[in-house]
């Protein structure tokens, strides 16, 4: 009886609200999104591989065993077989995840950081600065990506950091454009006017209000971009501009596998599948995050 009485009362209502808030929290909404969770699962497995490579890999990824090259998958001791030097493919894939995912995340971070800063400044300041920054970004966008990467890689030389830098730089303009577009919307929101009216400074407005509110699409884009960067690394490796040997990366495993597609198709296939899965994982996750963030963005 008493409970019933409170049915519509304040407690029940606030209870309800709490429940709803929980249910509507980004995390819980994401949890309900099956495909996104699947993506997150893949991403987590990959990250686990990255973190635990030392423990997970059964062999030294760079140890040559010239006697047993091109073993097929499920050979004794080598679940995924071996490569052209008799190196254990599983170990190389596991260690390769470090490079590939590090490159992808690193490149997204660099591109994201610079791109976001440029986008923020250019969207907020507008006018001449905006025009200059955006024309440069347009120019970079118009520059064919592969060519830009080739040239950057050639200038910078090979090596993990340079790969990160090259892909990162190539990513800057898209980030800058997205952020700028977002800033242009957010800076005219009424709550920004409200902040101006209380006398807040420009940087405060920009970093404490505009940036956080412009962030969601950036996060989404960043996740999707990680996926793209994994492919870019592979593409650079394909052109022979990626990571220096013997360091394993999925891209250079794939590339080497391509040269033995007939003898040992498993090398290209397995590394291709890992790339595909990871990209799929990040894409699904990114899509999921977008779905979760979207309705709120609209309101």
């Amino acid at each position, binding site marked *: 009886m008493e409970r019933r009485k409170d049915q519509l009362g304040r407690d029940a209502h606030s209870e309800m609200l709490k429940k709803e808030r929980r249910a509507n929290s980004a995390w819980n909404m994401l949890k309900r999104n099956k495909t996104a969770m699947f993506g997150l699962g893949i991403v987590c497995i990959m990250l686990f591989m990255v973190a635990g490579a030392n423990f997970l890999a059964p062999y030294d990824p*760079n140890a*040559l065993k*010239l006697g047993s*090259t091109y073993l097929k998958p499920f050979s004794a001791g080598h679940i995924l077989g071996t490569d*052209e*030097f008799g190196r254990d493919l599983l170990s190389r894939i596991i260690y390769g995840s470090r490079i590939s995912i590090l490159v992808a995340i690193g490149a997204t971070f660099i591109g994201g950081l610079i791109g976001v800063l440029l986008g923020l400044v250019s969207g907020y300041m507008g006018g001449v600065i905006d025009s200059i920054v955006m024309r440069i970004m347009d120019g970079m966008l118009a520059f064919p990506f592969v060519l830009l990467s080739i040239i950057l890689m*050639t200038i910078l*030389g*090979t090596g993990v950091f340079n790969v990160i830098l090259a892909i990162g730089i190539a990513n800057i303009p898209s980030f800058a454009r997205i952020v700028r577009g977002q800033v242009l919307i957010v800076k005219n929101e009424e709550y920004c006017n409200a902040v101006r009216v209380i006398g807040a400074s420009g940087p405060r407005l920009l970093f404490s209000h505009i940036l956080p509110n412009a962030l969601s699409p950036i996060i989404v884009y960043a996740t999707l971009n990680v996926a793209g960067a994994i492919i870019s690394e592979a593409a650079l490796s394909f052109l*022979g*501009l990626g990571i*220096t*040997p*013997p360091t394993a990366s999925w891209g250079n495993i794939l590339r*080497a596998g*391509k*040269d*033995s*597609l*007939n*003898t040992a198709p498993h090398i290209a296939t397995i590394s291709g599948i890992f790339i595909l899965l990871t990209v799929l994982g990040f894409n699904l996750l990114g899509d999921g995050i977008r779905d979760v963030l979207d309705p709120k963005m609209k309101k």
Partner: protein
Amino acid sequence: GCGNKATPTTPVTPTTPTKAEIVVPGTPTKGGVLTVSLTASPKNLDPVKYTGTYESQIIQNVGDTLVSYKMDLSEVIPNLAKEWSISEDGKAYTFKLRDDVFFHPGKYQTGRKMVAEDIKYSLERSFKLSAMKRLDMIESVEVVNDYEVIVHLPEPNAVFLTALTNSGNIIVPKEEVEGWGDEFGNHLVGTGPFMMKEFKLDEEAVLVRNEKYWAQVPHLDGVTFKVITDMSQNANALRTGEVDFASGLTGEAVKVIREDANVKLLETPGLHVAYIYFNQVSGPTKDKKVREALIKAVDINELVKGVYQYGEAKPAALPLPPGSWGYDESLVSQVPTYDPAAAKKLLAEAGYADGFKTTLYISNTALRIKMGTILQQYFKTNLNVDLDVQASEWGTFSEIASKGNAEIFAMSWTWYPDPFFFLNKIFASSAIGSLGNGQGYSNPEVDKLLADALIATDQDERATMYKKALKLIVDDLPGIFYANENVTWGISPYVQGVVQRADGSIFLCNTEVNAWKVAK
């Protein structure tokens, strides 16, 4: 010794016992268009402007040189020149020309006879314009009569005749060259077995039979050279029948073709040396002991097996290919062999008991990367030397390597059988600063021998000098000369009469060969 060595005379025969080959009749038949794949794109077919071997494959089937190499590369034989004589001082070469040679008809002439003026024009043009300086040793060309010319050299030069065999020095008609101007490359006209019908950049070059070819009438209706840069696709194209002849196969493609019963693999040892060159001027490798240790730390046989998994090369020891007449089998035993313990000791003596760090520069091709990866392993396990492998694309690599900025670099060298094209280019002090001698090898004795060998005209005499120089070089341990690659062609069994040359040149019809294609 350095393991099983291939002698130049031993042909490498494709032996896969299980393979049931298609047998086709061996009598020449007329007709058919042969499709040849090239692994890189020919850019400019103007003989004085061409830079790559892919271009020469086409040029040499369209044009003829004054003299040429015999197909087995054993000697220089007459071609457009019936015969020649050399003056006493070795500074004047008199060539007697054939009188039955006609140019292909073109836009600016209708297939006129070739005469001495054309020789003068072509050679002088090459002398003046060739970016590659393919004929920089001549002074002037003198026309004696329509069928006789004298070429004057400022000083004797033993490789002059060799240089004349270069397809950069084919004889071309002035009218066409001047008529087309910059476009001449697209409308190449010569005296060769095939006439250029069409040249589509990065795509194909279409050649058709020259019915009036002076040597013999080609069996083939024509030849189409197609550009296929991707190696696996080269093999695929041969297997699907889209090309009849895949030149320059490497890697897995070799295996794929070898194992496919429907196609044939032709292999022959090439005029090729793959080597690792140590910096002679700076870094740890300046010390001969260190170099010796590094050489002893590597098992060449295993290395070659690892790099050339499909038997595309033989292990080597000397900086000259066995196919060169300067090659000296007896020197092979002087090259240090695999001995990790001794290597370690040597390195300790040199003051690097704990190893050191060094960098290997290579261009980023699969073969080079494989080699680097294995070398890395040897240096690390046997000497605790950390080898950082820097693979960059050719432009960057050559910049670093030629400036002497590489502690170690690796590349390969392939040219004519004349030792000059190996030893002078790689070991002469005068070559320091170019990619050949980027590591700064310098030995005055060697320099002297190499210089003398260039002006001597007698081949035996020269061979002795080169062998002496080779011995001195080998003693200095400048690097690891680990492999001689084969020239590897994949070919359809329907194509007959193709002869492989050790330098990889494709001649489909000349005085010695005349390939034909059997209709399926």
